[in-house]
């Protein structure tokens, strides 16, 4: 057995008990899913492999801390910025605008 390639490469390791509880998908998670599929369809990213790569480049701490769609969101943002589709300033401004709106609506 070779050394694992990142925190996702878990096959053969003792993973402990499996949480079998059902859980709902939040609306923002559907939105991330939709954005990823749209980015693929428009050719802004090339394949799920590119998204997987971004997820696997997360630090082990981020990988462990983030939920499934949080990892997708981080990877998609990274891909779109590194491919020049958007720049970091645009992303930061949009995040700030959404935060401000949520605070105004009282659901932050």
């Amino acid at each position: 057995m070779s050394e694992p390639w990142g925190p996702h490469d878990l096959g053969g390791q003792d993973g402990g008990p499996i949480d079998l509880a059902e859980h709902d998908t939040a609306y923002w998670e559907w939105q991330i899913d939709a954005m990823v599929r749209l980015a693929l369809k428009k050719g802004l990213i090339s394949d799920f492999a590119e998204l997987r790569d971004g997820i696997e480049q997360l630090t082990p701490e981020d990988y462990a801390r983030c939920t499934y769609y949080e990892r997708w969101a981080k990877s998609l943002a990274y891909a779109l910025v590194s491919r020049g589709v958007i720049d970091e300033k645009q992303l930061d401004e949009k995040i700030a605008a959404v935060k401000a709106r949520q605070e105004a609506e009282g659901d932050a």
Partner: protein
Amino acid sequence: MNEPVFHVGQRVRIADRTPPVHHRVPSYAKGQVGVIERVCGLHGEPEKFIRGDGKPPQRIYRVRIAQPELWTNYEGTDGDKLEIEIFEHWLEAAE
């Protein structure tokens, strides 16, 4: 596209390497020897999708590995197999 390099029943070894990008071979399968169970379709090369178009597409094979060879202290039966799909560029002929 080229004809398949490997045929059903042939023994193959999965490469033991770790390119620093997304690749679809789990660490437990690297360096293992198995038998081609079937020849599957073609897909873009995962390692080349990172900042690229994945070309050229690579043939995929389903490789059958004996579970007792794969795991130390395997507790199942001797006949247990694991089947895993591996891209052609990760395989070489084995004795």
